[in-house]
């Protein structure tokens, strides 16, 4: 009668659904079923831990949902009266002990594996062969990333590193909470004012890795992106010795100012500043950049203290760029 037919349809649907899901997954690479493909030893160990945990959780998932579905099917009422009671079982201590202990063992297995991988994730390798890790300071600001290299060179939103070199990243914040995160190169570490965190990575192939701010930091949080560019050693040397320095003014304008004020200074979320004489008044401009602006009326006049912690070089580079490229007002102001 109806049950066998319905059962067949059910099985058919189940098989079809699984097949469809599997094809979709195969078609789309990992498709988001595991972290992004790692390109650094620490990120790889995190991925391994993820896979290890997946094995156990998938097994638990199948057991729990499977028995739930099976019980629902097997013990459905099927014409029995509503008053018919099942066997009045109040518990079974031994059984309950077993299903308390098994999860404990599973969790112990998970924790042991994670602790086994932990040093390789957390500890910065000594990297003696490379002459120690390359140390880069990261300063998070509303709404850009600033990188300072060992020789004092500064770059904005774009971090260049030699490929296959251990890099230690020291993370600071100049205003609110942010979080440094390049998925392919490891986990998140928060930038919290007054605190100092660090992490490391060692990119295993040349190319660009996309980083994002991982802690909500205000109105342009979504646009606070970083690019990590891993490149051969000589390209990196060229970058820290002169390219970064030469393009500092432009990259400050693009990363620090233009996100709100527009690339021509034409205004956007922030006000239009292309004609503002403030652009060519170094002293007042510095004051505004360091202190920001906070007014209640109108509220849209808020400006983050984007220049906190800047060096003289940084201010000068921006001032020159503003004067040469951005400023469209009369020259008399300057």
């Amino acid at each position, binding site marked *: 009668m109806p049950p066998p037919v319905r059962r067949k349809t059910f099985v058919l649907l189940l098989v079809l659904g699984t097949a469809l899901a599997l094809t979709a997954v195969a078609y789309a690479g990992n498709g988001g079923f595991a972290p992004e493909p790692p390109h650094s030893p620490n990120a790889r160990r995190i991925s391994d831990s993820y896979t290890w945990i997946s094995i156990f959780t998938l097994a638990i998932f199948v057991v729990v949902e499977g028995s739930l579905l099976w019980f629902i099917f097997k013990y*459905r*009422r099927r014409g029995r009266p509503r008053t018919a009671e099942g066997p009045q079982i109040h518990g079974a201590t031994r059984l309950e002990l077993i299903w308390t202990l098994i999860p404990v063992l599973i969790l112990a297995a998970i924790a042991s594996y994670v*602790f086994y991988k932990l040093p390789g994730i957390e500890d910065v390798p000594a990297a003696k062969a490379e002459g120690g890790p390359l140390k880069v300071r990261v300063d998070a600001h*509303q709404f850009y990333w600033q990188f300072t290299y060992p020789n004092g060179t500064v770059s904005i939103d774009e971090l260049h590193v030699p490929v296959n070199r251990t890099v230690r990243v020291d993370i600071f914040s100049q205003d609110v909470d942010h979080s440094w995160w390049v998925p392919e190169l490891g986990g998140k570490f928060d930038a*919290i004012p007054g605190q100092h965190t660090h992490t490391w990575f060692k990119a295993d192939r040349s190319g660009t890795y996309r980083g994002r701010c991982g802690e909500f930091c205000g109105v342009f949080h979504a646009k606070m992106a970083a690019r990590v560019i891993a490149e051969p050693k000589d390209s990196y040397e060229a970058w820290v010795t002169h390219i970064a320095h030469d393009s500092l003014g432009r990259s400050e304008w693009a990363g620090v100012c233009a996100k709100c004020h527009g690339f021509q200074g034409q205004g956007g979320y922030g006000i239009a500043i292309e004609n503002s004489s403030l652009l060519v008044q170094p002293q007042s401009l510095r004051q505004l950049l360091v202190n920001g602006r906070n007014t209640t009326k109108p509220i849209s006049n808020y400006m983050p203290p984007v220049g906190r912690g800047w060096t003289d070089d940084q201010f000068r580079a921006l001032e020159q760029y503003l004067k040469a490229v951005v400023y469209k007002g009369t020259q008399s102001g300057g």
Partner: protein
Amino acid sequence: MNASEHIVGVTVERYRPDWRQGRVASWITTVDHKRIGILYAVTSLVFFAAGGLLALLMRAQLATPNEHFITRNSYNELFTIHGTVMIFLFIVPFWAGLANFLVPLMIGARDMAFPRLNALSYWCFLFGGVTLFLSFFAAGGASKSGWYAYPPLSEKFFSPGNGQDLWILSLHLVAISSLLGAINFICTIHNMRAPGMSWMRIPLFVWAIEIYSFLLVLVMPVIGVGLTLLLLDRQVGTHFFLPDQGGNALLYQHLFWFFGHPEVYIIILPAMGVISEVIPVFSRKPIFGYKAIAFSTVAIGFYSMLVWAHHMFSVGLPTFLNVFFMLSSMVIAVPTGVKIFNWLATTWRGNLIFDTAMLWALGFVALFTIGGLSGIFLAAFPVDWQVTDTYYVVAHMHYVLFSGAVFGAFAGLFYWWPKVFGRMLDEGLGKIQFWLVFIGFNLTFFPQHLLGLLGMPRRNYTYDQHGLWLVYNLVSSIGAGIMAIGLVLFLYNVIKTTRSGRRATNDPWLADTLEWYTMSPPPPHNFDRVPYVTSARPLRDLRRRLAEAEHG
């Protein structure tokens, strides 16, 4: 003004209805636990609808890349207020409402221990909620710093305007309300149980409310402190959380999460209580392992106070602290697992009746399991470094809180509706609603796990990737729409059955607990006579005694 008349020499007071008996006034002045419970639940469901609307706006904005449906600032207001509303104005007060109605009935009491305090706690909650929604009209709009409002972002400099201050004020009111309610529940449960109702005979929902109340009493003062310090920073010029003036921004995170994690269990334990009532009744069996479930409720409550920093794995705590909080978070999975297995064992060899309440309860077990399992990934802190603050976390917490609290809430609504209003909800509509919400929920939130692993951070007003990002986001938005239709169907169900629904008998489900002993709806004094309680299932005992008497 002629209050009395002389009739044959006898002074007779003319009957003048008290103004407090009016249709509206009687609700405003009520101190009856059942009416306060209904006020609580209805108000919280209105807030649920409002919070859901905010979520739909967000899903519309995120449906496709580079969308301009709403502005950045509006988006930030939306997710802040959505989170705050759902947690502080919907789930916690909804349980307060359900418990208000049920706890005295379940333990055979006439009312709560402090009826006037009970009314005060409701009105604090209502005005707290109204304050929060009115903050949209404050200078600078509503709070935009997320539902946990980390300083320095929530400080005066970075969040000018009064939205943040009103947010704090609103949470203070709601916290006072929760605190008063919790004290009331504890006093009621400890002192007013029916004769014979020992601790091992109280319904599991009452156990859940007992622990819910204790957690509220323990942690609400802590968030009160955190918010007060933040308010002082903003308004008086102190600098508790301002590092450049000697404060510590991390301190707030500890204060917040010391409250914030137990809050998750404040939300989920009552839902588990509801499930522990519903599953046995619709399986026609006793709950499997009553003591194990009761004690695991206590254990979850205890451990929930020791896991707060697993929300802070990425702030750079010392390794041994990360290890401690990882292990404590994993330990809490054990009592939770015990509950899941016991519910499964309860259905084993039962006579399963798939009424709507049971569907919601089984849906809870199916989906909450997924939320629990994704929690294990988050508890392992190196993995947490990768997925925290992404859509993975958004998916995880909705699997825990939506499939937990909301499925639990609807199981409770369909189960106790006949007792509260004396009419049955429409089962057919209820089942359609369940399937719409069940399918919509999974479509909305399952792809968010994948988005998180692909690298989409939470709280982003837009994204510019196409491909899978677009697919998953679009599916998620469509799912949200399906879910919304399901929830609107509930409103239709209520309207439809208010006048024409089938009348409920005292005990339409053949249940186990005392609230089904009295009339539906119960009279103001609850019980004419309370039976002596001899087990955890007094009503079933009574039915059997009656049956025995009939058959001689």
